[in-house]
């Protein structure tokens, strides 16, 4: 097949659209997982035994099952589940995109919650005590003292999860989502040019990783404010 023929350009355009879908899926999945993961992480710090027991069982199930199965479960079983919850008289359309966002959120919120737990354990107890002694109320203490330090402690782990979520997005193509990898596969099959299209898709992921590393380096400098000087 000729490079930059109309047909070729058509497939490239399709891949660009697929890349846009991948980015949307990633952005929605990661940001929801981050918000819910941090909230759940804070709530499950509670010493309440019911919360503890529930969290132990729930998180080991979610983290023990392959993400792909959760995507399938939500895609093929999603409308039955929603009807079960909201009543059978209404029908629910579950799109591959919706199921994908939900699955990524559910799975990675768990990992992020665990990350929050680890970071809180690593925070000296004296930080909480100093806030209490200064009569700073819990919500303000979390916002101004605890979370900024947790962010620093959890940042390397968060960057890891960020990369893993990105690399998990193609799984949703197996539920029929036309993301970057799905469209690369279509183009490769139709043109019998696997290298061009699969390498193009890989370049997208590599470029995204490179951007991520630059972003994380910036964030690290920012959150190490006050701590970096010790090493200098």
């Amino acid at each position, binding site marked *: 097949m000729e490079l930059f023929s109309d047909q070729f350009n058509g497939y490239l355009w399709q891949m660009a659209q697929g890349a846009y879908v991948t980015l949307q899926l990633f952005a929605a999945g990661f940001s929801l997982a981050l918000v819910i993961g941090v909230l759940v992480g804070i709530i499950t710090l509670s010493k309440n035994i019911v919360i503890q027991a529930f969290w132990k069982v729930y998180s080991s199930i979610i983290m023990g099952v392959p993400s792909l199965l959760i995507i399938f479960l939500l895609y093929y079983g999603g409308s039955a589940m929603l009807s079960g919850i909201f009543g059978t008289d209404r029908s629910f359309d579950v799109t591959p995109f919706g199921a994908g966002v939900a699955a990524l959120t559910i799975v990675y919120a768990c990992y992020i919650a665990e990350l929050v737990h680890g970071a809180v354990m690593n925070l*000296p107890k*004296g*930080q909480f*005590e*100093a806030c*209490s*002694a*200064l*009569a*700073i*109320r819990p919500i*303000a203490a979390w916002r*101004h*003292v605890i979370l*900024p*330090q947790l962010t*620093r402690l959890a940042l390397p782990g968060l960057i890891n999860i960020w990369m893993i979520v990105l690399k998990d997005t193609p799984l949703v193509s197996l539920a029929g989502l036309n993301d970057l990898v799905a469209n690369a596969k279509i183009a490769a099959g139709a043109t019998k040019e696997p290298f061009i299209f699969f390498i193009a898709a890989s370049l997208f992921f590599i470029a995204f990783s490179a951007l991520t590393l630059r972003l994380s380096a910036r964030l690290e400098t920012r*959150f190490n*404010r*006050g*701590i970096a*000087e*010790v090493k200098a």
Partner: protein
Amino acid sequence: MSALQTSDLTAVAAPRPVAVQMTKVDKYYGKFKALSGIDLTVRKGEKIVICGPSGSGKSTLIRTINRLEPHDGGTIVVNGITLDGSPTSVQDVRLECGMVFQQFNLFPHLTILENCMLAPRLTRKLSKEQAEAVATKYLERVHIGAQAHKFPSQLSGGQQQRVAIARALCMEPPIMLFDEPTSALDPEMIKEVLQVMEDLAEDGMTMICVTHEMGFARRVANRVVFMDQGEIVEEAGTDAFFETPKSDRLKNFLAQILH
């Protein structure tokens, strides 16, 4: 006799008002009894030193006063507020008490100035300018105004502890609690921190200090309390405490600590 005369007489005779009143206070960690039957009265302007062997419950006692540890029996009243565990009582009592810890516990991600401004802004609802003025005033008082824009990690231990004292003072509490403020410091830095505490004592602050610095106790304390195994074993005016200890446990302790 007129009412005026009576009140004059009582004014002369009445001791200073009570700042902290602990009555029959018990505290358990699980089944372990860390405090038993603690009775302690601290009056406004008094300086109390608490000493005793490691594990005797000194930290636990001082931490029940601002409810970093809840007590399990007895009553604690701080400047008229009974610590009954309700959120308002806890908050009100914490506004009455500043606390300084052995490990400083400064906020590492904030500058010295920001460390001192945070609580006044959040809790006393001061404006940025007001909080900065208060912070600057107390940082200068502990002789560390020049370091205001550094981070805690850039200061020596003694400097960090002086910042921690300033941070507590910024809430302008009438009572200050100190839990071994010099125990984590190198010897050459202990003096600068004790000096700041002595200045504070001279200004009439009510102070309760857990410390092993017996020189400081002799110079500053009105009364010294000796604890062992969760109990107050002996309590006396400073001179009597060191010159004529009564119990064998205190005699042994003093013999060890004063060599």
